[in-house]
């Protein structure tokens, strides 16, 4: 059920970092490998009332209760069926409240690649800051383009307690 992340042939060059890439539909994304807690297969989550739609529910992860976010919904892609090869990546996020763990549902996990800062291009201006706030940059890898994500910004606003406004909305008047 859980796999350990292994490093690739890329030799880590000082001044660079490694990212775990994953696939959503036809796109490839990357997250800082140091934030990855574990990778596991899909299992049924327990729904949480009044949660934003992309927060599917919570899972028991070795004793802690971890919320699970559907990345396709997060990115407004079509929803997909969860199959035997659907994967959950458990990440840890730094927020004002401290460190929190949560899991994201993706189609599949790909390689670990080393980021060479020189090759990273900034996210294009799509006219709205919100649309690209969570993107650190774009990096070509082999024949693909990997979208490097800033995890803290990406999920930060989704969970109550991390985002002051939504917390107030959820709590009784």
């Amino acid at each position: 059920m859980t796999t350990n992340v292994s490093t690739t042939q890329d030799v880590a060059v000082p001044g660079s970092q490694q990212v775990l890439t994953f696939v959503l539909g036809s796109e490839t994304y990357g997250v800082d490998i140091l934030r990855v807690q574990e990778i596991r297969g899909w299992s049924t989550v327990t729904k949480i009332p009044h949660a934003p739609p992309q927060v599917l529910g919570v899972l028991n992860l070795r004793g802690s209760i971890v919320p699970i976010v559907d990345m396709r919904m997060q990115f407004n892609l079509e929803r997909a069926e969860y199959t035997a090869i659907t994967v959950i990546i458990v990440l840890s996020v730094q927020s004002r409240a401290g460190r929190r763990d949560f899991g994201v549902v993706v189609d599949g996990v790909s390689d670990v690649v080393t980021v060479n800062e020189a090759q990273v291009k900034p996210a294009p201006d799509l006219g709205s800051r919100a649309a690209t706030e969570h993107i650190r940059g774009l990096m070509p890898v082999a024949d693909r383009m990997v979208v490097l994500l800033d995890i803290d910004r990406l999920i930060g606003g989704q969970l109550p307690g991390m985002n002051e406004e939504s917390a107030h909305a959820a709590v009784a008047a």
Partner: protein
Amino acid sequence: MDLDLAQFHDTFFEESFEALDSMEAALLKLDVGAPNPEGVNTVFRVAHSIKGGAGMFGFKDVASFTHTLETLLDELRSGRMQVTTHISDQLLISVDVLRSMMSSVQRKEPVDMQKVADLQFDLEQIVANKPGAGAPSGAPAGSSSAAVAPGAVVDANSAGVAPGAAVEASSTSAASGGAPAGGGPLVAGLGDFAGGGAAAASAPGKGAVSVGHWAIEFRALPELLLRGNDPLAIFCSLAELGTVQAAANLDAVPRLRQIDAERCYLTWTLRLESSCSREQVDAAFEWAAGDCEVSVERVEASGAPPVSVATSPVTTPTPEPAAVAAPMPTPAPAAAAPTAAPAALAHGPEAPKAAGGEAPKGGGSEHSSIRVSIEKIDELINTVGELVITQAMLSELGRKLEGPVAEPFRSGLNQLERNMRELQESVMRVRMLPISFTFSRFPRMVRDLAQRLGKQIELKMTGEHTELDKTVLEKIGDPLVHLVRNSVDHGIEPAEKRIAAGKSAVGVVHLDACHRGGNIAVEIRDDGGGLDKSRILAKAKSRGLVGANDVLSDEQIHELIFLPGFSTAEKTTDVSGRGVGMDVVRRNVKELGGKIEIHSELGKGSRFIITLPLTLAIVDGQSVSVGGETYIVPLTSIIESLQLQSQMVNKLSGRGEVFSFRGDYLPIVRLYEVFGVTPKARALHEGLIVVAEGDGRRVGLFVDELLGQQQVVIKSMEANYGPIDGVAGATILGDGSVALILDLAGLIRVASRRVAA
């Protein structure tokens, strides 16, 4: 010896604060008229050990202040001074000052020296003015540095000062130092020292009158020096009790080539002229216990045959001292100070432990105990929690098992379940502590408060050994303080009023704790004036909290005092009366999963009863199924479960459904609507109603079916997700899946909002 002592600071502070607590407790128990000698001794020992530790770590101010305290306490414990109320008060104030001094030192903040200096001066005055002081010598008043005995507590300065002063003042004793058997100059120096020390440091009133003496044989065992003891230091502390003449026996000293500088080859015969007690003599050797052999005999002034007293408690058999002269005397004055410092004081950590051990902490000083960090315990509890879940899962699977191994396997699992239950209970108990830890602050508090308000109040405490979870213990302190203050301030009437009412002049406040069912009940009872219902009602009406024509039951009137800002006190004191307390009290109690009840009778008194669960981590729950999801309803919230028939339900226009239950109409909360799941049953008569209560309101929860009842471990939702209204937490079921635990109060709020919307 260049130890990094900083690593020991924490332990020193921890132990010192505990020691201060026991000191305070002993002082409070001290009956001024007939003080218990053991109590005074306890207080003395605590001061002594704090002084020792403080000196070793270089906390000069603490050491100096404690030394003055110790001097006064010594006078008290030897009976040379009597305990008076004034002294007792000053001692209690000293405890406070010491505490704040140590806090400041611990936090590396500057100490408020003005307060300390003032108090120190007062204490010195008390000692100086004691009856029979005769011509007060310059010694005690103000010159605490000179009063520091060279041996016991040393810092660089006084080390330089004292021996010098001692040597100069030793004129008369030089001769008396003579006496010895062989080995002239070495021993004379020793004698000088002892005599000089006595002149500089002895308390006034010790005339040259012959008062009989103690004949002491002191034989050091070889390890004495290795263990950090210094005979010179010991003799100097003896010198504080009277005039000491010492004669050393050098017979065991080997040739120079064979001398091991760290072994002691000397024995001494000492003559201590003093009327001090045997305990005082023994106290001087306390630090070297186990490393020497001492025999102490009393010889009376009248020349009566020496009364042979049993050998002092410090013997150890073992190794014969091999030969060699100890490095003692001439290097002594210079070396003694610095070496005596780390030497005698390296002994420090042991002494405070001895004192700490003897001064019993709240509950069980006889049981040995061990300090454990909270994180380790929490980890342990977590792991056991996981074990429970795994075991539940295995049991589940075991039920479905078939085949020849199935039966023996299942019975093995049953055994496992029993073991797990025991393990879980034991581990939960690890975090439990007796409530005396919280109760212990009250005697002092009530005493001070009563004094301040001019009332006579007796505090009774029972059930202090009742245990509860550490977190609950810590959080219950503030509410209890508030309630006790209320009783003292508002409950108990002033003496005249009590007498006029036919009560005794002394009011009684009674704190009690006991286990009741699966909970702990803490009661604060007073025989004061009780709650005045009419005044409360009037006040509530005038504030608009209650309608002018509302009729309230006694219970409801009592509940009014929990409203924020509510107080019928005529004037606010800084003690209480501002009306901020009771609502906070109730909130705190609720957060702990408990409740608070009031019983009161005008003129007779009041009782406040707080009921708390034994531990926060576990809840007894009823599992219910709604739309395929499992939820846990805390059993304490459930009143009854029933099945409705359609005719029992009424619809209130636009405001939801209600049903009749024991004479009341209760609203129905369709859980599937609140949680957004698709239920199996939509028609009310096809599912079940669980009548539950939250925040004083009752509702009927509509669910698909009831599953089992079980004890569940509460896991926090907030750690990774956040708070959810209506959800108290989550738990992990036997199959590894997560189930939400409902919070009735929140749930009812949510449901009300939905209906209103």
